[in-house]
């Protein structure tokens, strides 16, 4: 082969190799961030329940980021997978086994199966058809859960779930300490997996599909297979979030399948910025803190402020926010370089 005869300058090969391994390495900021999340129980002992909600929303947002941020697939019905996971985990705990981890696995598999089956619906079409189809699937599930109230409890929700202790050792306490550490661990493990997957050749091909499907297929990427794969994985992630929700609150209501879940989730991912894995997590923190603050003031009309946020964000707030971020990053870099000799 001709390629084998081509020998590049060793310095160039070296540079490329170093670039690749540098990219995979953990940044200081990342380590600090996860360190803080682990230290949170000591810093905010009274905020465990809220932190647990944040961790679950972050996992849910991470799931949407995988398809929206990396593969460019828009969805207005991501709650379908959250709901599937929540009901699967709830029903499993109620009827089969109260062990949290087994329930988590069952829920993940159920949501992944649903994701796999519905992934074929998002293969074709424009953004608009995808938005409609995903919305339709979520609405279908909502109607189903509502109709089969003998199984799901209908509008009353799935009641009477009682979870066993985590790993047989740690019972879920009222302060939410076990709940938070459990949710955080699941989030962290799944985040690690996502980080690795998105840095793999597979992750690279997803970005190619998002950027330019025409070129991606001319490069040898079998687009449909990749979309089925990432959609299934994302559904599994959302299912895990649903399971955590069901298990830590010991309750599942129809609310998990509501439209506003999917719409709010979009906002969460967009606030933090799609396509870099931390966007969903940061968005989840901001969203929950904001929600907590606003609903203290006006519990009933919280949706109004969410709506306003969306409108302002799209009308130009996003540019301003990202501009602000870029500017503060530049200022920081300047200060650091000034300090250097």
């Amino acid at each position, binding site marked *: 082969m001709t390629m084998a005869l081509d020998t590049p300058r060793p310095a160039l090969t070296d540079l490329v190799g170093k670039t690749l391994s540098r990219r995979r390495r953990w940044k200081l900021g990342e380590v600090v961030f996860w360190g803080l999340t682990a230290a949170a129980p000591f810093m905010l002992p009274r905020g465990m329940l809220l932190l647990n909600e944040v961790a679950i929303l972050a996992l849910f947002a991470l799931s949407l980021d995988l398809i929206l941020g990396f593969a460019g697939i828009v969805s207005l019905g991501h709650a379908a997978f959250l709901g599937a996971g929540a009901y699967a985990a709830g029903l499993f705990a109620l009827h089969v086994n109260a062990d949290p981890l087994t329930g988590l696995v069952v829920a993940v598999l159920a949501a992944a199966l649903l994701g796999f089956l519905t992934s074929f*619906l998002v293969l074709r079409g424009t953004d608009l058809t995808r938005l*409609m189809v995903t919305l*339709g699937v979520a609405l*279908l599930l909502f109607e189903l859960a509502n109709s089969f109230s003998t199984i799901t409890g209908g509008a009353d929700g799935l009641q009477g779930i009682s979870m066993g202790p985590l790993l047989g050792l740690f019972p879920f306490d009222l302060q939410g300490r076990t709940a938070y550490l459990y949710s955080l661990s699941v989030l962290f493990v799944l985040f690690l997996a996502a980080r690795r997957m998105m840095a793999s050749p597979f992750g690279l091909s997803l970005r190619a599909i998002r950027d330019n499907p025409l070129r991606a297929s001319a490069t040898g990427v079998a687009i449909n297979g990749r979309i089925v794969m990432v959609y299934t994985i994302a559904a599994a992630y959302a299912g895990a979030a649903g399971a955590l929700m069901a298990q830590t609150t010991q309750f599942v209501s129809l609310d998990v399948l509501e439209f506003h879940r999917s719409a709010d989730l*979009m906002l969460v991912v967009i606030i933090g910025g799609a396509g870099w894995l931390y966007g969903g997590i940061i968005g989840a923190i901001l969203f929950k803190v904001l929600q907590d603050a606003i609903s203290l003031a006006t519990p009933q*009309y919280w949706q109004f402020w969410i*709506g*306003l946020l969306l409108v302002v964000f*799209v009308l130009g707030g996003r540019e301003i926010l990202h501009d602000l971020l870029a500017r503060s990053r530049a200022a920081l870099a300047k200060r650091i370089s000034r300090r250097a000799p």
Partner: protein
Amino acid sequence: MLTILFDGVAYGMLLFILASGLAVTLGLMNFVNLAHGAFAMAGGYVTVVLMQRYDVPFVATLPFAFLVPAAIGAVLERTIYRPMYAKSHLDQVLFSIGLVFMVVAAVDYVMGSQQQLIRLPAWLQGRFDIAGIGIGRYRSFVIAICIVLTIALQYVLVRTRFGSRLRAAVDDQQVARGLGVNVGVIFSLTFAVGSGLAGLGGALGVEMLGLDPTFPLKFMIYFLIVVTVGGRSSLIGPFTAALLIGIVDVAGKYYVPQLGAFLIYALMVAVLFLRPQGLFAVAR
């Protein structure tokens, strides 16, 4: 059986009038406005408020149910909607969902969350029999108005100067401007009329669909189904789709009530999967 068919037709016709504005903005102008139902709700509340607080007769409220949302539509189009035309569908979706959330909360705050009821005038109440089929007076009234509006709409779009200018503006803004068409005004006017029609539909629908602050969310999906399933290249597609949905929904809720809206959503997902461009789309 035939009564159900009749009710389905009335429901479908009403859906078409409600969604016709969306059929134009989404179908022709390619702008996703999920807040379309908010204009319908505005029309509904105009009628309710006029009737309850000022004792205006039902029929006399209808022009206002058209004009008020149309005016709101025109103002919003000029101010916040216009910058959205050039953005991605995702942005348009987020933006208009935001509007829906705001409107739902605001109306809840002002009007309260309860279902609004109106008293129809006596001549629109009850039903009469034709060959043993029970026909609701009010539904006949709705069908009559909708038929007139549909014909007028089709006439305006296809036969008038305004219609041809709109189609030119949609096809290619640059060329239309070059031909002396004031694209901005055409779009504003179209948007206003679409909002007005939605408002009128909302007013007519208070009796049939109910009215509370969650109206835009509840029916958002129905309007979208009408347009996306109907296909976006003409008004005939959405019209047929609306009738189909009306009949299927009424019949479904009558014969298999436990399934709720399941049938409609299943229908939509199936159609969009098999024909992403819609049921009646003509290949261009």
